[in-house]
């Protein structure tokens, strides 16, 4: 099986409202930075392009078509799109390289979530006959999950506040973060309840932005002569949509994906977990069996800024950044989709 290298990663700042810019204007600067990082001109210089986005964030069909206008796709290119987080676009790109139809790929994800009411919009992801007509928003579902954890004594509100505090402090070193600061757990606990048992700080913010990555075969990465990290494993797994049939206090699919991806819990220097709610970081950490000395969400994670449809890819990019900077030797990145961690993807990265 061909080894895959990550050669470049860039993301925009997470901002609560990108203002006047449209999708293509949000994507172009990020793409131009990632091309520059790898030393190539545009999408003509990679073998495949795949993106992730969701029409409902901006409220118009075919949002992704605008993305093609950012690529320089003349002459035409090999290109595809998933209506999922761009972490799954990375997955599709890896298949393409492994089958020998490309030696490199550009992956990007983007989301402008500010135009709509994101938690309400996401209620329409639920079963259209039984659940969507109830308009249960994504925060309420997560609150239900947190309540289960608290009532079963699996976590305390203090544990959740610890997660938030660490995120805010870590995010002070992340130039792209939307929420950062020297926040103590007690400061979090002093906040009023928003959707019990969640405080606003337990919930990731709504963000606008994009991220982009370039991957290649190891041979191609060497040809480009840029520092790279190796994707030694990637896998994903979905669970039932029926929340009543899942143990919401655990994430079985994350554990399955990690196992299939070949994760060795004893050898994880850093883990970037896509946990849009503080309690979900605890669920994921436990499901993965991460050791105490594993650095968790040193970027601040998505509690510091959540680029819907790009956050999963960004988690992988954050681990890549730390490996190529020499900070760590190996790490894992996690991406999620669907209500209450329904669908999870785990990527294992190593120093080249």
């Amino acid at each position, binding site marked *: *099986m061909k080894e895959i290298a990550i050669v470049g990663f860039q993301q925009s700042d997470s901002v609560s409202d990108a203002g006047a810019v449209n999708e293509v204007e949000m994507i172009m600067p990020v793409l131009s930075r990632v091309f520059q990082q790898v030393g190539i001109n545009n999408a003509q210089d990679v073998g495949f392009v795949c993106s992730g986005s969701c*029409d409902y964030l901006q409220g118009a069909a075919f949002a992704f078509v605008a993305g093609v206008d950012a690529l320089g796709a003349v002459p035409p290119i090999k290109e*595809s799109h998933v209506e999922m987080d761009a972490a799954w676009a990375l997955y599709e790109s890896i*298949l*393409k390289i492994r089958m020998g139809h490309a030696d490199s790929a550009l992956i990007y994800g983007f989301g402008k979530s500010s135009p709509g009411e994101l938690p309400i919009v996401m209620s329409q992801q639920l079963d*259209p006959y039984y659940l*969507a007509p109830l308009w249960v928003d994504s925060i309420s579902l997560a609150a239900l999950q947190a309540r289960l954890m608290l009532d079963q004594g699996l976590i305390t509100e203090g544990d959740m506040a610890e997660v938030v505090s660490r995120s805010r402090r870590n995010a002070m070193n992340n130039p792209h973060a939307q929420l950062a600061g020297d926040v103590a757990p007690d400061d979090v606990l002093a906040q009023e309840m928003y959707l019990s048992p969640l405080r606003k700080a337990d919930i990731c913010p709504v963000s606008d932005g994009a991220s982009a990555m370039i991957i290649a075969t190891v041979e191609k990465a060497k040809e480009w002569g840029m520092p790279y990290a190796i994707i030694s494993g990637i896998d994903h797994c979905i669970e039932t949509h029926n929340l009543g049939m899942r143990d919401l206090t655990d994430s079985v699919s994350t554990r399955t994906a990690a196992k299939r991806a070949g994760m060795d819990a004893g050898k994880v220097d850093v883990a970037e977990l896509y946990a849009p709610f503080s309690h979900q970081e605890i669920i994921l950490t436990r499901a993965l069996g991460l050791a105490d000395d594993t650095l968790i969400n040193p970027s601040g994670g998505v509690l510091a800024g959540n680029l819907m449809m790009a956050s999963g890819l960004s988690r992988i990019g954050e681990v890549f950044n730390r490996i190529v900077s020499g900070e760590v030797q190996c790490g894992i990145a996690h991406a999620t989709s669907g209500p209450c961690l329904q669908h999870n993807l785990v990527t294992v990265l190593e120093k080249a």
Partner: protein
Amino acid sequence: MANLAAVVGIGQTKYMTKRLDVSIAGLVREAAVNALQDADLTWDDIDAVILGKAPDMFEGVIMPETYLTDALGCNGKPMLRVHTAGSVGGSTALVAASHVQSGMFKRVLTVSFEKQSESNAMWALSNPQPFSTHLNAGAGGYFAPIIREYMRRSNAPYDVGIKVAVKDRLHGARNPLAHLQKPDITMQEVEESFMLWDPIRFLEACPSSDGACAMIIANEELADKASKKPAWIRGVAMRSEPTMYAGRDEVNPQAGRDCAADVYKQAGITNPRKDLDCAEVYVPFSWYEPMWLENLGFAPEGEGWKLTMEGATSLDEGGDIPWNCSGGVLSSNAIGASGMIRFAEAARQVRGDAGDHQVEGAKLALGHAYGGGAQFYAMWVVGSEKP
């Protein structure tokens, strides 16, 4: 070099205006179960599911793969959701194939669907955005001027589109799954049908259908042991270009030409009309047959319409290169599934399993899909023989 892969199971629903008897989950499951039965397999034999459909706004369900995983037996497995506009059914088949061709999976299920009756596709497409003129009278309003430019360039007679409309409906009458069943259709009936977007008449446009299509794609080892004859994947290609750029040829887009050249090269095809036995090509408006005949290299530029008029693409007239024997998009159009139906029907032909619309002795067939402003392309070539 890609690992060998083959289609070992195909399942479709009946295509019709409204499938009120099933939910969205019931619709996709019906196609998937039919594919499993065709392959003599069970859910446990499937390693991953790859789902495709056109914009979520058609049914109003965001990222429906999260809801459909239960119906598709995917719990505990990988699920991928593809969306590349109208070409999505084809792209989804290609992404599914890449799961096997990469060597990462042994056997996967792929499903595409659209349940247009549960929403309003016309509304979803012309959802008025501020600041733009609201002139998008459906896809026909976009494609009619391009067709007009083709007619000008090629000097094709006015009734080429009428002929295609009749031919594909006669083909569709041989296919019990086809939405439109018009065995007695005539040129006169098409010509007298209501003009929608000049030069596109009502009977020269595709219907709006509910339906789903599924395929099971397996690796060489499992395909060799398949219960029915497999359709071997001989070439796969995708191309995209922007909707608009200065000098873009909208009539004969370069992305389509490049995509065809790529897939032919992989399959060893030098003369598509001669080397292929039949083709299933995405023709939602009748005039797109002559246009794609040229774009795909079956005829020189400006001469595609001659093949149509000679009957070369007609099964009923004994043509040498029948196109859309299943009735094509003009007979059934479950948008998200339409591309996959083309890919699946190409596979049915080389498996010798196409019933009354079988091209006798078909060994090599093309499946084609396009989408957006005729800017996204997906194609595959399937063969009866292992390469």
